[in-house]
């Protein structure tokens, strides 16, 4: 639905986005992950026509965003929850949006209710809103026109844990009904529970993309498993016999093998496993490694 095609954006000599391509599909939540300044926001701003691309293009449902008539009815956008007049009330901001899109005032009340802003809160001016309340209002604004595509930049920023869980449910439900969701974050754990697909970006370049399993599989190096059993010595002996290096660690073992191999060894040795964990790089390590500045070129060269 959203198609980013060899997109680049430079500011003078600085390249903010460098030849980025990816697609977001309907019915799926796509997480756009990267550290601050990686080019997420710039990419999203190009998507909605606020920033001109230097090279390449973005289409939404086959259209340039700027050619979509009344775009708020098709694409819900939240780029910066604070980018609203601080002197307007939340209700007024939504009313202006609804009027622009040609929607009835009742839609404003529905959206306020959906995002959990009370009547009293909606009558407060934006400058008196907490960041979490601004985010809720911004999500309400994005959903006003009942769009089929959502583009949200750091929507979880400022939400409390209950708010993050609420948003996760909201976006999941939205995607399950066939909507396309692209949301960015610099925090992996905000995204990994909800995103069906992840795009990892660092220094303007996409460093990895795919779902959780394929990301892990593609970047797995040496296998490493942490295991604890009722008889560690017997398990260690079995593993050593099958050619795996084993070192005791705490109450368990540190094994150079996949969890599956350790499980099979335990089965063969008739040892009861009480804990079995993949000790290889987790997604967070992968994320940090792929997006860190020092290792970027190395990874780019070996990939």
């Amino acid at each position, binding site marked *: *639905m959203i*198609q980013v095609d060899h997109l680049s954006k430079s500011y003078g000599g600085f390249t903010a986005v460098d030849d980025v*391509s990816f*697609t977001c*599909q*309907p019915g799926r939540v796509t997480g756009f992950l990267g550290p601050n300044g990686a080019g997420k926001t710039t990419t999203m*701003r190009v998507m*909605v*026509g*606020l*920033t*001109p691309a230097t090279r390449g293009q973005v289409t*939404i*449902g*086959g*259209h340039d*965003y*700027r050619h*979509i*008539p*009344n*775009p*708020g*009815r*098709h694409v819900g*956008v939240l*780029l*910066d929850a*604070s*980018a*609203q*007049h*601080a*002197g*307007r009330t939340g209700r*007024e901001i939504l*009313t*202006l*949006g609804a*009027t*622009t*899109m*040609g929607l009835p005032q009742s839609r404003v009340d529905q959206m306020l209710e959906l995002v959990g802003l009370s009547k009293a809160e909606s009558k407060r001016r934006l400058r008196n809103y907490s960041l979490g309340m601004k985010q809720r209002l911004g999500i309400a*604004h994005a959903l006003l026109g009942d769009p*089929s*595509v959502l583009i949200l930049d750091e929507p979880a920023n400022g939400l409390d844990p209950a708010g993050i869980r609420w948003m996760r449910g909201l976006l999941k439900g939205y995607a399950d009904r066939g909507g396309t969701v692209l949301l960015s974050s610099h925090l992996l754990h905000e995204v990994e529970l909800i995103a069906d*697909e992840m795009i990892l970006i660092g220094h303007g370049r996409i460093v990895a*993309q*795919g779902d959780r399993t394929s990301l892990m599989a593609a970047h797995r190096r040496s296998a490493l498993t942490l295991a604890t059993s009722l008889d560690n010595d017997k398990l260690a002996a079995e593993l050593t016999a099958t050619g795996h290096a084993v070192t005791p660690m705490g109450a368990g073992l540190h094994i150079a093998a996949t969890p599956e191999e350790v499980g099979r060894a335990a089965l063969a040795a008739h040892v009861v496993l009480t804990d079995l964990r993949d000790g290889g790089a987790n997604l967070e390590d992968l994320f940090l490694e792929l997006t860190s500045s020092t290792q970027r070129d190395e990874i780019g060269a070996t990939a």
Partner: protein
Amino acid sequence: MSTTVPELHLDVADTVPIPFWRQVRVEFRKSYDTRAGFWLLATIGILVGLVEGFILIATLVQESPVLWSDFAYTAGGITSLLLPVLAILLVTSEWSQRSAMVSFTLEPRRSRVVGAKLAVSAIYAVLTMVAMLVIGVVGTGICELVQPELTEWDFDAKLAIAFLVSQLLTMALGFAFGSLLLNTPAAIVVFFIYWYIVPTVLFVVGELRDWLGDLLEWFNFQASLQPLVDWELNTGEEWAKLLVSGFIWIVLPLAGGIYRILRAEVK
């Protein structure tokens, strides 16, 4: 990359583009739904009320003669000084408050948003003229009732039209400064410098040499506007001066400002 996905088409054929009048409605609402806008309009109203009330009482107490235009032009003078600030706010607040991001996301055809804001400025110019006429009627009417022989209804439609045109031009000037600078305080300061200082400077500098004075008259928009306000725009030279100085003070900054708005990366 994932496997090739068939191009998923978003059907927009049935969606009606945002009509211009709706954009104008939104921009009109924005002009008074903030404290700054609301109090600017309220201040204009309160000032006009106070001054007109003072004129009315002074006239009646002193039993002095009064013309309809005394009331009408006092109202017009006060509004024409402060209303351009509203035109400035219409443009600049979108930048200082960063709401332009939302406005241009909802309507990516930016020229229509700018056009709607210009239309709102024009609507206010018309509203001021109407208010000016009404205040003139009410003030003169009260005097007519109390002292009929001293009151004169010198209503002249030409002067009302002249006022409307000069008001429209002043609003356009404020709008031009606002869109060129995209910064509220700067635009207001430049506007008042233009209003109070530029004519004086042009005049003083013009006194130095005759030829310089003749030349600078082509830059003095306010002076060139005066014949229009008095409905005495008779000679070709007066017309030419109005057009030239109007081009320098309105068209050039407005063109530059709109170009900037249409091209700017909105942050």
